[in-house]
């Protein structure tokens, strides 16, 4: 592959981005590569810097240090209106004085596309998001879900190299959100566009993303597929942020680790540390089977599809087994589910 071609297929590259607002260092050196055509999610609690990172890519903030490259081109000093990037804002930021059609046509008209081309592109985008019947409405006449789709159409009609989505689903109710997640995922596949989504909802992140970057306190902690970050979290924060995790203290002994629940043949980089285990990897049995230990059921929460079981010694499990508080069960920790945490 020659260099020009390499540049053309390169995605978005962030190099050592730092940003400080007064006393507060919001980004402490973030480097990341997002591939072309990828659905990438920045996941983290509020205040972790994920929105600031998105705003740096969109051109609404300037980094104190670091560079932003897109397709080999340096965007770092470029103002927002010159970047081939579009944003779906958290509050949608639709123009209240313009109709749905005019809102969607806005970016094309800014770039002085001929009106016939504007019409064709806008109609295509409106069709893509099932908005044909709403063209003449004003934003205040739309429901939350409709506004969200107009905001999406308004950004996508420009065929951006990267689409930035700033918690676009947070204002929708749970059922609608699940539908829109699927719709968003399908749209991204169909257009083969690069999407970068910011969210604090780990289920949403896992539902839509090719890869997830987990952020905390201005740092990118781990980047990987949803399966990787969920099943193989590298740190305690990632393990706990992506769902419930049992954290088990362990000490290196010979060729494995010693834990309160027995010996496991695991390679660890430390003398003393922590293992993580997802509750669905805690197997419960009514009858004794090999490699089990006994535990008492402290509390049971009915979750519909499964039971959430709180055990003594303190472990959380998810099971289809019908157990009741006070009952003795036999517990086995699956070796494949145990994750060695690095922090």
């Amino acid at each position, binding site marked *: 592959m020659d260099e020009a071609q390499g540049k053309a297929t390169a995605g978005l590259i962030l190099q050592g981005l730092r940003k400080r607002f007064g006393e507060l260092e919001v980004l402490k050196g973030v480097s990341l590569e997002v591939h072309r055509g990828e659905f990438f999610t920045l996941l983290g609690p509020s205040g972790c810097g994920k929105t600031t990172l998105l705003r740096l890519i969109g051109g609404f903030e300037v980094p104190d240090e670091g560079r932003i490259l897109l397709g080999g081109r340096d965007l770092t000093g470029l*103002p927002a209106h010159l970047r081939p990037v579009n944003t779906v804002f958290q509050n949608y930021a639709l123009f209240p004085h313009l109709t749905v059609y005019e809102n969607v046509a806005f970016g094309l008209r800014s770039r002085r596309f001929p009106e016939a081309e504007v019409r064709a592109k806008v109609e295509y985008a409106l069709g893509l998001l099932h908005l044909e019947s709403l063209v003449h409405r004003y934003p205040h006449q739309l429901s939350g879900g409709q506004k969200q789709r107009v905001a999406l159409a308004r950004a996508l009609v*420009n065929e951006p190299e990267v689409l930035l989505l700033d918690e676009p689903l947070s204002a929708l109710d749970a059922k609608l959100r699940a539908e829109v997640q699927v719709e968003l995922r399908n749209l991204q596949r169909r257009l083969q566009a690069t999407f970068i989504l910011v969210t604090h909802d780990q289920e949403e992140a896992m539902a839509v993303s090719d890869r997830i970057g987990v952020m905390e306190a201005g740092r990118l902690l781990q980047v990987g597929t949803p399966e990787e970050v969920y099943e193989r979290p590298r740190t305690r924060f990632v393990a706990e942020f992506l769902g419930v995790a049992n954290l088990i203290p362990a000490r290196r002994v010979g060729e494995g680790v010693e834990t309160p629940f027995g010996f496991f043949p695991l390679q660890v980089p430390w003398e003393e540390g922590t293992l993580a285990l997802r509750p669905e990897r805690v197997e419960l049995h009514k009858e004794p089977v090999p490699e089990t230990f006994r535990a008492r059921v402290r509390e049971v929460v009915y979750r519909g599809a499964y039971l959430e079981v709180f055990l003594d010694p303190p472990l959380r499990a998810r099971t289809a087994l019908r157990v009741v508080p006070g009952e003795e069960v036999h517990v086995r920790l699956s070796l494949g589910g145990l994750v060695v945490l690095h922090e």
Partner: protein
Amino acid sequence: MSKVVVWYGELTTKGSLVRRGLALVMPGLLWLLAFLVLPGLLLIPLSFAERGAFGEVVWTFSLENYRRLLGFGVLGFSLDNLLALLRTLSVAFWTTLLCALLAYPLAFFIRAQPPRRRYLFLALVIIPFWTNLVIRTYAWQLLLAPEMPFARLAAALGLVEPGMALYPSAFAVYVGMVTAFLPFMVLPLYSSVERMDLSLVEAVQDLYGGPVRAFLHGVLPQTLPGLTVGVILTFVPAMGMFVVPDLLGGAKYLLVGNLIQQAFYTMRDWPYGAALSLVLILLTLLALRVYRRYGKEVDLA
């Protein structure tokens, strides 16, 4: 039997609410009726009356005042009055526009300050009101005098002859008018700018819009309510202004306000003054009507 309604947790009847509301607005309504509406209506018959030999009002019906107003005086036709009307419109228009152009950056500047310092700047905007307009205008006479820095700078740049004052002149009138009215534009505009959602401006920038589109679609629709109040508060009094052109404009820069003042005070010709006042009121209402029609195109939110 009136129906019982709940009003802010109080059990009452519709009739009693209406009575209470009327009692509350009555004093204000009566005040306006007695001191604004009735004298205003009185201008209409007065404008068709005539001045007597000693300055008294002679109640006849004559169109003489309006003929005079249009320039058909005892000495033949003159354009002076019509020019003064046009000049008034133009001064009020440009004063309002200049105030708006200056008020936008100022309002955004104040918004950008930390909350406590905003009140400081708002106070600085209001403080000139603590002094009478006449005194403030005399202060400009001092500042624009020949030996003061402004005049020296203008002379050094070759704009005026050395040793000349910068007043009386059209420039001085605008300086005086804009300083007099800027607070009336800044305060209402700031109330809109303060509540503005900046993400709409970012949306314009995100959608490839430059500064002009950012203002037209991101800023203007959101600040139009404040701008409209500011335009009315500036334009209407600017149309009737006579102190500033009197002190800074000299005899050659008369506005309708000066003509009215002369008619009532110097000439003691109240009927003629009434006719001029009515024409000024009509012209002002007409101009605001034009603004409303033009403004409606933007004001769809």
